[in-house]
């Protein structure tokens, strides 16, 4: 894997994500051609029908898919480095469901506090991560298998709470079903403007985290030997990963597999150096989720499949394929 080649692949993937975004804007019950999209995007005229469709419906949704795909993939990439475990991702470690439980409590029990959903998600995600670490910690570090077992336990616990909440608040449940399945439907500019500032902060921090991720992926002993405070890096990077996953959960709900599979694909394409792997995960995560969401809303039209469901349907078999190739 030469460096210039890895760099080139990252750039191409970013360009692909942008191209896919332009195409996705055109797809839907009313098709808009690419020249018209570009025309509207760069020379907006308020009385245009396309203008309303693009700026109020399609563009926010496309941007949201890009942002959240990037967030979750980066989160998975960081967790995989920090936990020294190729299976670590916000879904399997329970971070996503921890965040989801807290969001769901607000959504169902205290709908008047909707503005606190990102904060609740962060608290829930941190709590789940803390439990996983506490359960998986051994005297000489974290054992990879116990991370996954602890994640199973946390996920089961959260699943129980979600089940309980949905029985208690069964009357309010329909409003939450879309969210629980990870849907980007009917999310307007307000959700985009809610998540974008947080996401940008997260991305900037992940850029600074590249070097630390590169050292900690060498293992605790090597990192310590190179003069790093391993526990401090682990905690800080974990907080960053949880933060990126939690704001995504607060915005659109649970989407699995992006955080697991995208970093694997990125590693396969550009190698395990986080200097390339991190931006690659970002670009590829954005691209993958955009494709999943656009596929979900156009393939079975007028029926709409939430991106989370489509990701699970594609992600499960891909995961099995990775196991067959014994990547783990």
């Amino acid at each position: 894997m030469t460096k210039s080649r890895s760099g080139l692949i990252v750039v191409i993937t970013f360009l692909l994500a942008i191209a896919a975004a332009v195409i996705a804007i055109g797809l839907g019950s009313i098709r808009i051609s690419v020249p018209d999209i570009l025309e509207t995007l760069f020379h907006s005229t308020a009385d245009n029908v396309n203008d309303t469709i693009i700026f109020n419906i399609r563009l926010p949704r496309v941007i949201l898919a890009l942002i959240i795909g990037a967030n979750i993939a980066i989160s998975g990439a960081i967790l995989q480095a920090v936990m020294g475990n190729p299976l670590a991702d916000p879904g399997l470690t329970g971070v996503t469901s921890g965040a989801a439980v807290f969001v769901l409590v607000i959504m169902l029990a205290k709908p008047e506090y909707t503005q606190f959903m990102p904060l609740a998600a962060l608290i829930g995600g941190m709590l789940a991560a803390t439990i996983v670490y506490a359960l998986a910690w051994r005297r000489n570090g974290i054992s990879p298998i116990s991370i996954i077992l602890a994640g199973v336990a946390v996920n089961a616990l959260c699943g129980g709470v979600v089940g309980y909440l949905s029985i208690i608040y069964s009357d309010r449940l329909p409003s939450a079903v879309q969210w629980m399945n990870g849907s980007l439907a009917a999310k307007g500019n307000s959700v985009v403007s809610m998540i974008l500032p947080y996401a940008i902060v997260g991305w900037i921090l992940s850029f600074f985290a590249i070097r630390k991720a590169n050292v900690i992926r060498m293992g605790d002993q090597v990192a310590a030997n190179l003069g790093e405070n391993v526990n401090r890096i682990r905690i800080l990077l974990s907080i960053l990963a949880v933060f990126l996953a939690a704001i995504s959960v607060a915005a659109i709900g649970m989407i699995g597999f992006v955080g697991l599979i995208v970093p694997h694909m990125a590693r396969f394409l550009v190698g395990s150096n986080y200097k390339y792997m991190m931006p690659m995960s970002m670009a590829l995560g954005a691209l993958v989720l955009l494709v999943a969401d656009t596929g979900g809303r156009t393939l079975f039209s007028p029926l709409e499949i939430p991106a989370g469901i489509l990701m699970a349907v594609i992600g499960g078999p891909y995961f099995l394929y990775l196991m067959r190739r014994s990547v783990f």
Partner: protein
Amino acid sequence: MLTVNSISIQYEQKKVINDFSFSVEEGEVVSIIGPNGSGKSTLLKSISRQIPYQSGSVELDGMNMKAMNPKQIARKLCMLSQKNQAPSDMTVYDLVSYGRYPHKRWFEKLTKDDRDIIEWAIEKTHLTDYQERTVASLSGGESQRAWIAMALAQRPQILLLDEPTTYLDISHQHEVLELVRELNEEMGMTVIMVLHDLNQAAHYSDRVIVVQSGEKAMCGTPDQVMTTEMIREVYRMDSEVMYNHAERKPRIHLLRTAR
């Protein structure tokens, strides 16, 4: 250079290292030997801060290591574990360049000087032809050399090696130990290593420390330490020891378990 002042290490209720002291002079090669479970690796790991000690202190260049920050220590002391695994796609050159990490701040890139040091480390460990290969594709001995090269690029004054030969076949074991000796003689690098093999310890060290049940059983030059009495006492083995006083490198021939 390095002084260990009566350190004690305890896991839960069990004392693993009890009131252990020794010091190492600059330019020495010191081997720590002892049976399994005697605490020799624990001792080395506590010096490198992988395992905390409950009492006592370790001084590096006259400074208490607990008062030094991790980066400061990393520039002086480097520990190489028994078994190391690099990410599967990492090349030898990339691995060795990690040795420069403690000398850089996050915004600093590798300079010409860093690259010279990396190349020097690769050359010293005879890996020049392998530098673009992945570490994972190397044999056990070669990969151990690559990790030593990384340690060299760190430019430490003290190198700690925890059973550096355990997973290697005989010729690779000697290759690694000869490299250690060469680095010591040419650069004056101080080496402290844990070894299993008594002959290797006798052959490659200036001094040998014998650990038994967490205590210092003996300490001295190989010909002082390697005696049939010591081997019977510590290892429960009968043996013959051949002394060559000109070289001070006794050869140990183990016979049978002592009754």
